[in-house]
């Protein structure tokens, strides 16, 4: 694929929703933003990081805020271009290309809108290839790349640029700023050269998400072998099929946490517990963790294979729980400290994908 136009948006949206693993913000709004921007400014050129000049400036862009506020205070657009331009000007560089930080949820599509408006290409790469709740949870952090200098902007023209000592501090400062700027804002961080992107990023994320969406769409329309082709491509496994029999939600330290319990359709003695922290994070059957971060857990509506967000979960829903292996780039030294189950406060060990005696 050489460019992202209107034809690719729907597949990309579906793939992004799945990679949101229940969180990451509803990509519906981002899809409409990307459509409008492409209608107004034209398709977006997609490049691999290696095709850019090594010293080209690559900037990320993402929505930061509360998903529930974003659906009400819909983005203006200028906050994203504003954040990118402010960071570029702080660095004294031109913007060479835009890159998503999080291919999963709404932040997959917002960069397309920004790239086409700024007239620069989008890099087919990112730092997560799924949604995660915090800025420092990237492969860039593993590689020692700083989130700062970074910028946070609103739609009114207010911009803040930070320099911080650690990516964890960057996360706290950004959240604090957003609280004062209306909770529906833009963030540009992890400024890198194209060479740094080549060395550290997860490559092919945007095209991966698009293909994933296309294949899931085929599953939804019930094509023969559609699931097999989806699973071959993604490594997905169906880990459980059943009905939600309990849902416990709470907010602690700003995160929507909760536990959802699913009873197996055919064998009522089996239940699966999934722990939520904005995203679906840990799946536990019979007291044993079977899927843990950074591997992905997704819930699909049993009837139509539509991914369900954690906010959309409801008692009695009939769901298929599937697991996808994380991007291989995550498997580097120290990844469990950044995105392993203990990084989210769960007292369980990482389970290598496919381990734990799973049976569908």
């Amino acid at each position, binding site marked *: 694929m050489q460019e992202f136009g209107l034809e690719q948006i729907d597949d990309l949206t579906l793939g992004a929703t799945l990679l949101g693993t229940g969180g990451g913000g509803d990509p519906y709004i981002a899809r409409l*933003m990307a459509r409008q921007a492409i209608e107004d400014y034209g398709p977006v050129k997609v490049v691999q990081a290696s095709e850019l000049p090594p010293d080209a400036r690559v900037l990320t862009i993402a929505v930061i805020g509360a998903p*529930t506020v974003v659906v009400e205070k*819909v983005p203006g657009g*200028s906050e994203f271009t504003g954040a990118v331009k402010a960071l570029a000007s702080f660095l004294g560089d031109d913007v060479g290309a835009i890159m998503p930080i999080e291919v999963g949820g709404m932040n997959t599509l917002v960069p397309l809108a920004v790239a086409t408006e700024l007239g620069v290409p989008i890099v087919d790469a990112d730092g997560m290839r799924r949604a995660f709740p915090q800025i420092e949870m990237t492969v860039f952090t593993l590689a020692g790349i700083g989130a700062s200098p970074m910028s946070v902007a609103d*739609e009114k023209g207010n911009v803040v640029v930070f320099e911080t000592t650690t990516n964890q501090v960057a996360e706290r400062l950004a959240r604090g700023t957003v609280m004062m700027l209306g909770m529906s804002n833009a963030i540009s961080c992890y400024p890198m050269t194209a060479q740094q992107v080549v060395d550290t990023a997860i490559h092919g994320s945007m095209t991966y998400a698009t293909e994933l969406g296309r294949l899931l769409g085929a599953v939804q329309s019930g094509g023969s072998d559609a699931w097999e082709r989806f699973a071959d491509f993604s490594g997905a496994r169906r880990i459980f099929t059943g009905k939600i029999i309990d849902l416990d*939600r709470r907010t602690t330290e700003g995160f929507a946490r909760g536990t959802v319990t699913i009873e197996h359709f055919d064998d009522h003695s089996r239940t699966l517990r999934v722990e939520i922290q904005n995203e679906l994070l840990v799946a536990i059957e019979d007291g044993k963790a079977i899927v843990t971060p950074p591997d992905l857990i997704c819930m699909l509506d049993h009837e139509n294979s539509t991914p369900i967000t954690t906010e959309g979960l409801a008692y009695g829903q009939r769901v298929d729980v599937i697991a996808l292996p994380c991007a291989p780039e995550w498997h580097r030294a120290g990844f469990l400290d950044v995105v392993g189950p203990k990084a989210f406060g769960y007292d369980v060990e990482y389970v290598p994908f496919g381990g734990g005696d799973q049976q569908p």
Partner: protein
Amino acid sequence: MSSLRIGIDVGGTNTDAVIVNESGDVLAAAKSPTTSNPFDGIRDVMSQVLVGINVADVRQAMLGTTHPSNAIIQRRDLGRVGVLRLAAPASLAIRPGASWPEDLHRSVIGPTAIVGGGFEFDGTEIAPLDIDAIRRFAGLIDDSITAIAVTSAFAPASFDHEVRALEVLEEELGVDFPISLSHKVGSIGLLERENATILNAALLGVARDVVEGFHSALGEHRLEVASYLTQNDGTLMSAEEALRIPILAVGSGPTNSMRGACALAGLSDAVVIDVGGTSADTGILVDGFPRESTAAVEVGGVRTNFRMPDLISIGLGGGTVVKGTGSQVTVGPESVGYRVATEAISMGGSTLTLSDISLRAGRLSGFGDVDRLDSLDDALVRSALQWVDGQIQIMTERMKASRHKMPLIAVGGGSHLISDHVPGASEVVRPNHHAVANAFGAAIAEASGEVDRVYRFEPRGRDACLDEAKQLAVDAAVRAGADPAHVRITSISEVPLSYLPGRASRVLVKAAGQIKGVQA
């Protein structure tokens, strides 16, 4: 002196009516075909159902109708709407009407503007309301525009700007110009609420026709009654309110059917299966109200934030066509629908339908002539019934919220197809008058109120905030006509908002109660 209610349901095939007394007993029921001008059907069915009833005893009339839904689905009789959004500089990245089906967009959406205004989550202004820009927008409204839809950011929590914009538009266009404000129409979710407000504004003409037709039918039968329409959540709005917010009447049919079925059966928690001519819908009632679907609801291809009952529909009905021989049968999805009365083999027609199978198997009686089915192969009958029983069992199991057995209520003209023993169901209940469950559901509908807000639980505390929300919902229900002595909270949902300080949660509370005077 007794106090009676008349409930009327206009469906795609039939128009039904029931007369219900204050204890909820059905005194009379009637059915007649829905007519191309639906009010002929309403008048007909009213003449039938009112036989022997003293019209002076009838105090309330409740109408459930598919008019507004059909107007949107068929793109008929819709107005053309000017769209004003108060949110700039926020929200400019997505224009009004984005993602609407092209034909509906073309016929409904007129001039649009996004102007300065609206609120942040904490109640501060995004921007001061841009009065000059509103006046310029009013200048674009020509004779082709029948109504205006106004939507501001965070209007469910702070609607001052919408009210002020209404005043400005009335100064420019006159106080009679129809204007819909989003905070009266929908809940959190700017784009979905705006969509619903636009559709609402486009339906105002249809609403006028419905209410006028309803009132003239009532007048012809000399019924001096309070008149109501049923809403998608199974509660009532006054006919006057329906003139302003007709969109809330969209999708009330399945809710009325399910609530009516449960009340006829005297149950508040049950799985309901409504089998018609073409399809079977199953839903579940919890505490007397249908469990709602969490998926975004599309109306005529437009995404809205209405809650609709969680339903599973399959192609299984009295008119469903059966093909094949012996145990090699294919059932559906084609159906002869309401033409089953002439096309079924047992009725002298030439199509083998599930009604024929049911008649032959002894599940159905009083339909057609069983002798016409003499040549039917027993193996074929058995296989078709096996398929039906399997489908009913799957629907029941999927809908139930736990493995505990629940009663199953079978309603609708095709409900004879449901066996007396369904695995997963504690019993199969076939209430009297089940064929008019929709109209009965309309007749017993209650007045309701709801509140949908973002609360910060600190420093006041969660309980104080929830108490306030409950009181607001109760007040709204009483304003809608509920008897204050009988209002109860019917649902509370709390969604904690991630990343927000002060333990912020979106709180949605609904209250409902019988219309004042009905209990007598």
